Structure formats: structure tokens, C-alpha cells
């Protein structure tokens, strides 16, 4: 349950409102729940090595959520892994990171590599606690953010503002007299006097972070470069659109560039402090939203790559596990307190997207295609005349679900789980606070009464509605990529994922659920197991027939060099770098491009055939129209040396026992069953526990950090690496 709140601050990308939990209470006040239940010292017994041998260095991954920071430390030599969870400190992020290192019993000097994923940038963007930014646009287009695309967010509501206001107010938008055309030609030169006019204006504003997004700069960035050069001499933070989003569409490109400019002062400040307090050089890395790591200097220049880096890290670890387990199609299911993140992995590679909405504004950059929905363990359940709905409002960590006994009275998904007996009333809430099942029942009672049913039946119903909402997210991420989701295995992690996974699998028709060994710190682990990689993307707009092969090869070579250079600069030997190429393909009359991998030297016939096949797979048809290479992505990467590990839970397992739990029966019936409660360690091992293929549901498998529900009709078995596999029983 703890990690449910740990992920609580992730944004809901498309919804208008985002419920954000209160920040973790300072240590002087009421401590956050997890700190009460699992004091930091529990994961860091003093007996552990306090003064390590200088050669005895560790790799550390952390996932810094809005409320909690998950950390995993891996010792490369022995393979030992430790995990812990500490409160995040939104005001002092670096201090929280150092505390996290202490929580796994290590001094900063024992760290070789420190990779972190963080919601810090995303949260700042969503909450709009941002430093002032100025926008420089081509004269006549300086209102681009206010105009946007005209669309309103809600079709049938007048009570909410139809659009998000611009991140840059009109007074801070500057129209620069210059113009580049779509073919890269210059129709109005950028005069020196105009640059002077800009600098004089900027000095008056006092703004220190500037976004530059000139018309058609993706076709030729010369003017943007000129402007940037002059700006960098007078302000510390400059973001230029041809670097952030080198694609046509002036609004989306400007919006993305402004996001970067807004994030820059925040990111630079804390990354600089981190560099000072944890001077690891190239070993200090940031996880980025495209599913790889970048060194800190690159993240400072382009902090936008950290947007949604936490969810991306979990997906990255999932991709690694999918490869190792040989599962061709996997859906990730990362359920936190406020949101649930899902992503599709095909053949070991996570699906990518190039756009996302943050707070109602578009962000375009290559990212893992993580879809977030506003339903998590703390999501509040409401019964309106139109039906029952779950979220997006959340009880957060304060007051939290009613069953936490901390003042919450409105029903949540977690309360439904409590009513059904899935949460351990003794162990979970430790010595000080007991899980208050009565409070959960009271919270659910009004809904049950309105529907004319018992509280237990209402709880089961609530889970079925939550599952339907989550199934819809699974549907979206698979449909967009032409995959039948029912062929996938469901990989569940985060605080709530393992508890809900089998129910969701039943709803969606999935045959297998995998709960990875480090399920509660899986995103932190993902920071370590991901590749070290850089991505270059360019707009080319080349007709495939009659393609100038030599010219194309030269452009690709240039992109490879650009993608490889930062790796080499960070000490990666050139021989250890792999490159991958993806063409963004479309029919001449289309606008959305379809990513299609290709090999160099390019065989246009093969690329065309692959595109037609992919288009048919995605949309059900292909045509003989001419094809266009809209753009190309080149990724250079060095595979990670760290493998998936099985962490030491840090506390002794509790003995097996039984408890009465409620499960759905046939149709709309309900069954109360005496359910085995097993420590997860019992199922780990090559034989899968008892040597009989595991344990049959109903069962609940627990470890220190998570609860896995195995409903009747399902079996759970473990493997030597500590992963759990849930499948439907043959019988």
C-alpha cells in the first residue's frame, strides 16, 4: 500500500484537473504513513557496512515521486540489492536523495553511479509553479500560445474555462521581425538592429529564461541560432525550438519549447546542487522520458527530457524483464495512489509516442508511450445519477483512504480492497495504527445503500468499474499500435498493481500476470537497468521513390555522429555503441507519421513494404499512394551493465496464516473464502514454492512492500529470480 502513495503525484495528462496530494509532512509534524509503518531504519540496519572499502562501490537507482522516494542499491560484484522508501522533500530534493542513500546504509562515497527518475519537472509543469519565461516568436505569430488550436477541452460544459491559459502572458511574448519559409529559404532577413531591439526589451522584462520558437525553424534553424547566441550572452537560460521539437506545427513546437524554458531554472538549480553534493561526474545520471539515461549536463540543457521520467523508468525495467523472460508482448500496469500508468512492450521494446498533454498544453518530444489515467488506490468513488465513477479526485496521502483511519471518510478503491479482506489488518498498519475496516465499510455504505446491495457487493462492483476504466487505458495503448491486447502478459508493479492485476486480467481477457521481484521499487530499478542512450530526430520530408541514396546516407551519418558524440564524451568506447534507425513514414497526403524501423544502407523497397504492412496492421488498409519519409530518429545506445536483481526485503517474512476474503463468483454472485496468506519468499525458487507448481487461489502473497491477490481460479508460482507468475488454473 505504501507505494500507492509514492506514485501519487504523477499527472493526469489529458484530464483538465489534476489532483495532487499534499506534500509529505515535515518530520516535526505528523509523519507520513510509510515512515510510521516502515521507519527508514528498518531498511537500513546499522549492522550493514557503514564504512565501505573504496573499491566496494554501489550503483543506485531512485524514483523520486511527489510524496515518496524509492531507492534501490545494487552491488555490482556480489549482486546484493537493497531497497528502501523515504519521504520526498519537494523543497529539498537533494537532501531527500542523500537521505535515501543513507536509508540503504551507504555513505555518498560508496556510490559509483547514481541514476534518478523524478516527477519534479512534471509536477512543476502541471502545478504551474514556474519561473517567468519570455517567448520570442516571428512577428505576427507572437500570440501563438494564446491562440493554440482553438479546441476546447469539454464539449458539454460551460462552467470550466475551455482552454488552459498560456504559460507565457502576452506581455512577455516578443514578435521578432524575420521570416524563414517552409523550404528553408529566408524571406525576411534577421537584422542586427532587430536583435538589439529584442535585447533591450528583454532587459526591461527582467526575465531570465527565454524560449525561442521562430516560424519554420525546423526547416532551417539559422535565425534561431543567431537569436540564441545573442540571448545566451545576457540570460542564463535559453531554449530553442529546433532543438526541443524540430517539427512543423508552430503551436505545438512553441508550447514544448516554453515547457523546457520553464523547467530549466528549476532543473538546473537542483541538478547543480546534486552535482556538488554527489560529485560522481559521468556517474551522475538522469532518467529521461524516452526510456534511457542522460548525463546531468545534457539534462540541464534539456530538462524537458525528465518529464514523466519516473513512469518511464518502470516501463524500461519492464522491457528488460520482458526480454529476459522471452515474453513478446507485455502490458505494464503501474498503479499508484492517484493514477495508473500503462504502456505496451512489443518484442522487448516499449512503445514510443511523440506527444503528450501536460496541464492541457501539448508537449512534443519522443517519449515512452505511457498512458496515465486518473484512477489509483486513493481515487474517490462517487455514485452520480449517471452511474458510478472512480477518480480523478483522490484522497491522496492526507487524509488518505478511510481505512487508514486518518480522517478520510469518502470511499476509495483501497477501502473496497479493505472491505474485501485483501489488506492485512495487522501487519500493514504496524503497532501504532490499525487498518480500520469499519471505517472503510462506513465509507462504502452510502453507495451500497443507494444501489440496494450489501457493502461487500458494492466493494466488488467498485473494483469491476475501476478495472473497466483501466482496461480502457490498456485498450488505448494497444489499439494505437495495432496490437490485440489479449495476447499480452500483464506486468504489475507499483503499490497497487499486484493487488489488482488478476482482476484486471480477468476483465480484459489476459492469460498471465507477472509480478517482478522488485515490484515496489521497480521504477527505481529501471533507472539502473536502462541503456545509456541519445536520440536524434530530424524532419526530412523526402519522397521515398527517387530517393537520393547518397544524400540520405550522409544525413543519417550526420545524425549518428550527433547521437553518438555525447556517449563518447561520457567515456563510452565507440565500439560499444549500437545505433538504431526509425523512419517516420506517411502517405503523401497524410499528416500523422507511422514509425517504421529500417537498417542502413537503406533499401527503399523494403522500407515501403514495411510501411504498407505496418499501416495495414494499424488501420486495416494500405494504398498504393506515394510514401514520404517525414522524419528520422536515430538512437545511439550502450546497453546497461546492470541486470534485474532480487532485492533484500530488509525485514523478516511473517508466517503463513489464513483470512476470510471475498471474491466475485459466477455472474454477479459473491464468495467468502478462507484464504491463505503467504510470504512471498515461500513462492520464490526454481520449483515455484511447494514444488507442485505454486499455490492455487484464493491466496494472498505478501512481502514487506506489496500485496499480490491470487483470486480463485488463478495459480501463482515463483521463479529463482523472485518473479511471480499468475496464470489461470487448468481446472
Amino acid at each position, binding site marked *: 500500500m505504501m507505494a500507492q502513495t509514492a506514485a501519487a503525484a504523477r499527472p493526469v495528462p489529458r484530464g483538465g484537473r489534476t489532483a495532487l496530494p499534499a506534500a509529505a509532512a515535515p518530520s516535526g509534524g505528523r509523519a507520513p504513513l510509510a515512515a510510521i509503518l516502515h521507519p527508514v531504519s528498518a531498511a537500513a540496519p546499522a549492522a550493514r557496512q557503514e564504512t565501505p572499502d573504496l573499491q566496494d562501490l554501489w550503483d543506485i537507482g531512485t524514483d523520486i515521486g511527489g510524496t515518496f522516494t524509492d531507492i534501490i542499491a545494487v552491488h555490482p560484484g556480489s549482486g546484493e540489492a537493497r531497497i528502501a522508501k523515504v519521504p520526498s522533500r519537494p523543497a529539498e530534493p537533494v537532501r531527500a536523495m542523500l537521505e535515501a542513500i543513507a536509508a540503504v546504509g551507504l555513505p555518498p562515497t560508496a556510490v559509483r553511479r547514481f541514476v534518478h527518475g523524478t516527477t519534479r519537472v512534471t509536477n512543476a509543469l502541471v502545478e504551474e509553479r514556474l519561473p517567468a519565461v519570455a517567448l520570442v516568436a516571428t512577428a505576427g505569430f507572437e500570440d501563438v500560445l494564446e491562440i493554440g488550436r482553438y479546441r476546447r477541452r469539454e464539449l458539454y460544459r*460551460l462552467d470550466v474555462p475551455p482552454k488552459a491559459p498560456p504559460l507565457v502572458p502576452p506581455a512577455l511574448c516578443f514578435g521578432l521581425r524575420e521570416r524563414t519559409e517552409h523550404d528553408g529559404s529566408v524571406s525576411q532577413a534577421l537584422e542586427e538592429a532587430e536583435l538589439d531591439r529584442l535585447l533591450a526589451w528583454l532587459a526591461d522584462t527582467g526575465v531570465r529564461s527565454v524560449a525561442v520558437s521562430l516560424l519554420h525553424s525546423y526547416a532551417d534553424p539559422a535565425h534561431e541560432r543567431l537569436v540564441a547566441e545573442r540571448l545566451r550572452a545576457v540570460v542564463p537560460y535559453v531554449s530553442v525550438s529546433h532543438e526541443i521539437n524540430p517539427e*512543423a506545427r508552430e503551436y505545438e513546437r512553441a508550447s514544448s519549447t516554453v515547457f523546457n524554458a520553464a523547467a530549466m531554472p528549476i532543473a538546473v538549480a537542483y541538478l547543480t546542487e546534486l552535482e556538488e553534493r554527489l560529485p560522481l561526474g559521468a556517474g551522475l545520471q538522469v532518467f529521461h522520458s524516452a526510456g534511457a539515461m542522460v548525463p546531468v549536463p545534457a539534462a540541464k540543457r534539456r530538462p524537458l527530457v525528465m518529464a514523466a521520467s519516473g513512469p518511464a523508468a518502470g516501463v524500461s525495467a519492464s522491457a528488460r524483464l520482458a526480454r529476459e523472460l522471452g515474453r513478446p508482448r507485455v502490458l505494464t500496469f503501474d498503479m499508484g495512489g492517484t493514477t495508473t500508468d500503462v504502456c505496451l512492450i512489443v518484442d522487448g521494446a516499449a512503445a514510443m509516442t511523440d506527444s503528450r498533454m501536460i496541464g492541457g498544453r501539448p508537449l512534443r518530444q519522443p517519449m515512452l508511450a505511457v498512458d496515465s489515467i486518473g484512477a489509483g488506490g486513493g481515487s474517490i468513488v462517487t455514485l452520480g445519477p449517471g452511474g458510478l465513477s472512480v477518480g480523478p479526485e483522490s484522497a491522496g496521502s492526507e487524509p488518505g483512504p478511510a481505512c487508514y483511519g486518518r480522517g478520510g471518510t469518502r470511499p476509495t478503491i483501497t477501502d473496497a480492497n479493505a472491505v474485501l479482506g485483501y489488506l492485512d489488518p495487522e501487519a500493514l498498519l504496524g503497532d501504532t495504527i490499525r487498518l480500520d475496516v469499519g471505517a472503510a465499510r462506513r465509507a462504502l455504505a452510502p453507495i451500497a445503500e443507494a444501489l440496494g446491495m450489501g457493502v461487500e457487493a458494492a466493494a466488488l462492483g467498485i473494483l469491476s468499474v475501476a478495472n473497466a476504466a483501466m482496461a480502457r487505458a490498456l485498450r*488505448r495503448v494497444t489499439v494505437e499500435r495495432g496490437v490485440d491486447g489479449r495476447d499480452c502478459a500483464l506486468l504489475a508493479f507499483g503499490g497497487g498493481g499486484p493487488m489488482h492485476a488478476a482482476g484486471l486480467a480477468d476483465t480484459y481477457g489476459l492469460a498471465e500476470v507477472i509480478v517482478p521481484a522488485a515490484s515496489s521499487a521497480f521504477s527505481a530499478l529501471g533507472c539502473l537497468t536502462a541503456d545509456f542512450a541519445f536520440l536524434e530526430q530530424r524532419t526530412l520530408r523526402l519522397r521515398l521513390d527517387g530517393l537520393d541514396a547518397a544524400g540520405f546516407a550522409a544525413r543519417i551519418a550526420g545524425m549518428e555522429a550527433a547521437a553518438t558524440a555525447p556517449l563518447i564524451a561520457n567515456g563510452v568506447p565507440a565500439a560499444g555503441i549500437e545505433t538504431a534507425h526509425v523512419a517516420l513514414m506517411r502517405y503523401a497526403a497524410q499528416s500523422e507519421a507511422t514509425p517504421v524501423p529500417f537498417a542502413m544502407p537503406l533499401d527503399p523497397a523494403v522500407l515501403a513494404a514495411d510501411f504498407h504492412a505496418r499501416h495495414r496492421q494499424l488501420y486495416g488498409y494500405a494504398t498504393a499512394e506515394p510514401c514520404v519519409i517525414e522524419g528520422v530518429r536515430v538512437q545511439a545506445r550502450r546497453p546497461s551493465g546492470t541486470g534485474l536483481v532480487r532485492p533484500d526485503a530488509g525485514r523478516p517474512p511473517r508466517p503463513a496464516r489464513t483470512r476470510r476474503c471475498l471474491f466475485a463468483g459466477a455472474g454477479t454472485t459473491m464468495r467468502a473464502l478462507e484464504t491463505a496468506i503467504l510470504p512471498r519468499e515461500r513462492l520464490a525458487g526454481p520449483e515455484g514454492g511447494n514444488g507442485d507448481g505454486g499455490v492455487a487461489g484464493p491466496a494472498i502473497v505478501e512481502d514487506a512492500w506489496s500485496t499480490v491477490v491470487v483470486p480463485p481460479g488463478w495459480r501463482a508460482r515463483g521463479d529463482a529470480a523472485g518473479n511471480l507468475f499468475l496464470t489461470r488454473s487448468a481446472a
Partner: protein
Amino acid sequence: MSLRPDTPLDGPAGAPMGAPADAGALDPFVVEVIRHGLSAAAEEMSLVMTRSARSPLLREAGDLSSAITDAEGGLVGQGKDIPVHLGAMAYTVRELLKVCPAATLREGDSLIYNLGALGGNHLNDVKVARPVFVEGRLVAFALSLAHWPDVGGTWPGSYLAAAVDTFQEAIRIPPVPITLADELNRPVLDFILHNVRDPVSCEGDLLAQIAATRAAERRIRELCGRHGTGVFVAAMARLHDLSEAEMRAAIRGIPDGVYEGEDFLDDGNADGSPARIHARIEIRGDEAVIDLSGSADRVTNFCNTTPFIARSAAAYAARIMSGREMQQNAGALRPLTIVTRPGSMLEPGWKAPVAAGNHETSMRVVDAMFRAMERVIPERLSAGGPATSGLLAFAEPLPDGGWRMLYEVHAGGEGARHDRDGCPAVRVHLTNTSNTPAEVIEANYAIRVERQSVRRGSGGAGRHRGGDGIVRAYRVLAETMWLTTCVERTRIPPFGLARGAPGAPFRIVLERDGEARELPGKANLLLRRGDLVTLEGSGGGGYGAPEGIHGDAHGDARGAGARGPA
């Protein structure tokens, strides 16, 4: 096929929809799960369309809608698309079934049509309807609507302002199978492609529509497989009932009485004077009669519309006035009796030209209903906004005889509300289509967008100000360019509410050889190289008397408007 006011399309009690179901046995959670499934299926249809269609109008502007209906044609699931489409789609399958009875439909067939008489709106909006069978039983329809950038007729783009009948407007497609046993019906496709000006884009768009309905079929079958076909059908009936109950409760919250309001199109009467739209709303308990009979006779331009569009607009306005969240489906219509008068511009007969009425006249129905209710429930309404498509359609003749067409809609400032300023540069009410990015226009058309700005100060004054409109200027780079304008609110500005001031009206200016002249809101004309067409989108109406806000304070008020409520 005339519709008389004494036989309204929607009886107060509504026709029973879906198979009879034992309502008591239906698990409310299963209903909710199926509701999710239906919405997801409709959203998936729109996703397939926008990602794979050809025309910028579909892929950039999103002028398309997707819906699922029950076996009788009652709308049960819809995407987040265009309200005016979705409202009319409540009739598109129901009317189809009157001429193509269910017994004649077969699995794998899908029908293409665009006739006004079949729950239609204008000929550009081409529908593909696919009956969905599960184990041989017809359970639902998947319905895809897309605005084709050209469907033939007199003028490229198929908008002829001075059309005297529908035959001048476009090709008329009665329901014909576009797939048979799930195979493309090539002769029908060819027939259509030979009658449109951009057959390549058109084919891609139509294939995308077919693919969208196929995707929905797959999802509906999955839902039936999981929950049982009987439960699925019963759940659809329940969803109608839930929305009906919600709408009835909303109407009960409005005092009984008769409320009247009117608004005007810029012109359209035979003498060129503004054509009136009149709404008489009678609230009786939990039912409402919306009588639009007092509206003007058939107009002399293309602003006539079909009774389905009048109903779509009235249903939208009723939904807004309800102030409640509800699933928009056929059940929500049951407590509403919507009346139109034969011979009026809202029921002009099936041979009248209707291209523009779809998005112009429909908006005026909403406005007239708002005016009717403004004293009763002002807090649920907003002042007048850019209630027009704001359309400029550019068509460039190509050397090979083909055309390159750009269909550009324009926003304006939202009307203010009782508690906040209007938002700048947004679409309102029945439409929600987007602009096309300047960078996309310039890379694909012989047009340069010289500027796109907020039209500062265009919002009406008030205790809360109307949002500001926009300005967009197009330079013609081709030898010739055929232009269609279809813009209302050029003479009669967006109204203020509760003594707020009106916003600035729309304005279109053509600059040629150094001379500027204002263009009519509804016209077809030829442009030539170097012409500059500038469109100024309306400002929103203000709300409440502007107490003591004068002079420089306007700037502050506008700033607050841009930021939304504090």
C-alpha cells in the same frame, strides 16, 4: 417525407429502445463497464480516422465524429467529437432503418450515404454505417461521419452561397453498400470518386471511415462475448433510461412556464434582411417542448438546414441548460419535444440548399434558446460567442485539372459567464474543430499566412469581459484561388448577457492592389496572386454591466480573462 409539428421526431415518452430487459436483474456495475466499453469503441473509431485520414480537414481540423447506436438507431456511445454531428447522428441510423429495414441488412455490409432526409445535415458530411451482428443477431450500429472537403457540385468545396437547390451543392448519395461481406464494393467507390474533386484524398478518407467502423464492430463483439449479448442489449437500454432520468430531473429544476427568445442570422430573407430564429420553450414538470416554428421561412441562401440539425442544436442547448453531467444518448432526448415548421428554414424540404445551415443556423438555434432562458438560469449560460464556422475555403486549380483545397475554420472569443471572463480564441457550442497550423498550410498550399494574432479589445465589456477574437491573414501565392466565405456574426454581433456589451463582429477584408474592401460573410469569389484575405474573428459578449471598468482597467480585465478565473 415531410415532418409535421404534430408528429415530432421525439415523442415526449420516447419510443422504447433496445430489447426488453429485466431491469431489476441488471448489475449496475456491468452497465457502467459496458458504458466504458461503448465510449472506448467510439473513441477508437475517431483515433483510427485522425491518424490515418488524408484530408487536412479530418487529420488536422478533426471535422469528424464517431458513434455507436443500438439496433434501433438510438445513440448510446460517442467520441469526444463535434456536438452538432453527434446530435444529428441520433437520427442518422433511425431514419436509415425506415428505408433500409433491419431485415435487409447483412453482416459485413456497410452503407454509405449523405442525404439530408436520412438524419442528415449537409452533403459534405458523409456517413458510413455498419450494422453489427453477434451470433446472427443485429445488436448495434457503428457510425462514422466525416466532412469530406469536396463532394462535387458547382463550386470546389461544395459550398455555394447562392445555391437555389441542393442539386447545385453536391453529389447526393442514397444508402448504398460500400462494403459487401466486408469486401470493398469497388463500383460504388468508383462512382463516388468520379464525382468528387480530390479522389485520392477522398479514397483514403473513406477507407479510414470503413476501418473505423470495423474496429468498433470488433469491440462490440468483445463486449457481447464477455457479458452476454442479452446483457449488452439490456445495458444499452438502461443507459438510455439513466440519461432520461437525469434530463427529467434537470427540467424539474426549472420553473414551469413559457419562455421565448430569438436571434438572427446576418441576412437570408428575400429582401436581404436578417432571418429570425425563434424559440418558444415550454417547461411542464419534467418535460419540455421546444417549439422553433416561429423561425423564418426558407432562406434564399445555403443557410437552410434539416430538422435533424434543429433537433441536434436544441438537444445540445438543453444539455447545457441542464447543468448536469450525463451520458449524451437517445434517452436524454425523450423528455424533449422539439418542433419545427415545414417551409421554415429549419424544415425547408429535402431539395433546399443546406450546406451552411449545418454550422450557422444550428448555432443560432442555441443562441435563441439561451436568449429564451437568460432571465431564468443565467448562471448556466454564457454570453454570445463565435457561433459560426468562421469558414474560409480556398481551392487552387491545378494544371492537371485537379484541385488543392484548404478548409479553414476560425475561432473567436468565448462569451463571458456570471463568474468568469470569456476565453480568447476558442470554438464554442456545436463545433470543436481546429485551425490548421500555418506551417502545415504553407508547406501544402500556395498560401502564406502573414499573421495570426489575438484581436485585442474585441471582447465585449461587462462585469466579466467577453474573450478576444483572432486575426488571421492569408496571402495568395497561386495564379488564381477560388474562395468561399461562410461566416455569420458579421452584422449581428455576439450578444452580451445581463447587460454586458456585445463583442466585435466577424469581419473579412480583401486587400488587392493596395485597396481594401470588406467581403460578404457568405460568398464565392476568385482571388488572384498577391491578394491578402484577412479574417477577424468575433469577440465574445460581456456578462453584467461593466461596473466602473473603464479606460486602462480594460487591460487588467483582459489579462484576467486570458488567465481564467483567479
